[in-house]
């Protein structure tokens, strides 16, 4: 049975942002887990060629942010943009040669991250203005009061294969199960901002760094074991969180491909089904007209 929601009571807001440039400093290099310096693109700006469904790791990149990286120039409005934007929201380019092109929010990472077709994205540049049609915070699953929902567009929630089981648990399909030891930077931060960097996914580096997460894909739904993301992010035995992988390859240690949190609650409230195809690409793109 599809879970009932309060989607009909939610508010939609139009938020503004701009494509933010990649940032560097005069020291240029950062250092990886093995002490090797690197200078690589990935964070900020417009990152082409990596989309929902593509491998998250295996790139010569650091803090890979697929697509557009969007923020607001003023601190207060920026926090509103980051907190209120939800995975699945529509983004429309408002200035520059790509004006009118649309994309979709795939997560947050101190920027709102926007996937769109490469053909349109090639025309987008840093400084271009976008609007996010923000809708989703406040979404609840009415028959699952112990499950906190966040950062999730209600229409996307409706396309995901969520089910209420006969025993009352919420069935969720995930492409990977992530042990708590993989959780890196992002722990201790609020879960409406940025994402949870996963370690153990340093493809191409040592076996002692691996937790078997090198095969994650952008858009994968993942289970985070013993993680409580209801009101922040922290280790909590007996709880779990569900996230959507929104960022990719990292060299900076303690960082890595990161899920944006969308569901969290006691493990006993969930029925988890392993499904390699559990990826946003299937819920957002296939057989569905763009909104």
């Amino acid at each position, binding site marked *: 049975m599809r879970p009932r929601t309060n989607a009909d009571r939610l508010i939609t807001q139009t938020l503004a942002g701009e494509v933010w440039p990649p940032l560097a400093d005069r020291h240029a290099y950062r250092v990886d*887990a093995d002490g090797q310096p690197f200078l690589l693109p990935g964070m900020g700006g417009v990152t082409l060629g990596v989309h929902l469904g593509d491998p998250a790791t295996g790139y010569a990149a650091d803090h890979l942010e697929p697509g557009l990286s969007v923020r607001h120039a003023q601190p207060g409005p920026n926090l509103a943009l980051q907190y209120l934007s939800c995975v699945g929201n529509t983004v429309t380019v408002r200035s520059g040669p790509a004006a009118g092109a649309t994309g979709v929010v795939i997560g947050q990472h101190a920027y709102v991250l926007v996937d769109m077709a490469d053909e349109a994205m090639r025309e987008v540049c840093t400084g271009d203005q976008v609007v996010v049609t923000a809708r989703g915070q406040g979404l609840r699953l009415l028959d699952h009061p112990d499950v906190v929902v966040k950062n999730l567009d209600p229409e996307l929630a409706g396309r995901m294969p969520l089910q209420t089981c006969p025993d009352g648990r919420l069935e969720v399909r995930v492409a990977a199960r992530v042990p708590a030891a993989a959780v890196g930077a992002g722990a201790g931060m609020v879960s409406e901002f940025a994402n949870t960097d996963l*370690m153990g996914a340093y493809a191409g580096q040592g076996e002692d760094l691996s937790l078997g997460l090198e095969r994650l894909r952008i858009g994968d739904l993942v289970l985070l074991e013993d993680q409580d993301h209801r009101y922040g992010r922290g280790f909590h035995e007996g709880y779990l969180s569900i996230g959507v992988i929104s960022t990719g390859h990292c060299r900076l240690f*303690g*960082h890595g491909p990161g899920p944006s949190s969308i569901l969290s609650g006691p493990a006993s409230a969930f029925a988890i089904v392993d499904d390699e195809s559990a990826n946003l690409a299937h819920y957002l793109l296939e057989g569905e007209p763009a909104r």
Partner: protein
Amino acid sequence: MSVPTAVAVNLIGTVEHPEFGGSPFAVAMDGSPYLPVGDAGIVLGVQLGDLVFGLEGDHVAPGATLTHPDQAARHALTSFACLGNEVRVRTGGAAGATGRVLGKRGEAGRVIVVFEPDVLATLAPGDAIQVRGFGQGSSCPPELAAAGAVVLNCDPAMLDRLQVRLGERASFPVRAVVPSKLVGNGLGRPAQQWDLDLAVTVGNAERWSMAQLRFGDLIAITDLDVRHNAGYRHGWTTVGVTVHGASRLPGHGPGVMPVFCGPSELVDVRPDAADHRGVTSDRLWS
């Protein structure tokens, strides 16, 4: 290969004042609001050796916390201040009094210093404190260094006083040994500027052999490498000092400032959940 000589630097910090945003409340893991008391500034009545879980405060440090108005200088102050370094009050009613560095905290960077209670009671926010930064760049014995082990955030003179033995192997007395999955805030951050918060609460402290955790205790964390940012690495052990207390925020808790990291096969930890003795006032001042 000759061992380079570590150098000392004089730094300045100012005693910070607690800060709040627009709301007095923080949100605990269970969603309940609470008012965080004792997070930063001058905290009276809490001393090294006190029980961490005997307080109602949030991120309480047993002393005064220092900052610097210039962010780059603040990062440097945090980077170079090490456990055991001498500090001297330069202004205010306690001018001339000395104390010691206990540790450091993350985010924008803060240094925790301890004083005798009568000195601490005379300090005020804004007082200037000189810190004799010494310890970063000091080395392990060659056998450990060859295996990649490092000492960090620690005046070398403190190691003997803590009954740490460094030779062909490393040996540490600790309150408890915990897995890296308990670490929250501090992961992915530079351990020379940041502590590691453990998801240990009054509710689960017994499970992790930390019910008797005291300010200043040494803690070992398995499968954690903090040499180039803190992160998971199988087979590496990090040892640190408990520099601040518990918190109800998810991903936060007692803060451990790393002082050593090396391959687990070369590290002997000597856990004593009941009678461990870590950094104490007499060991800091001896």
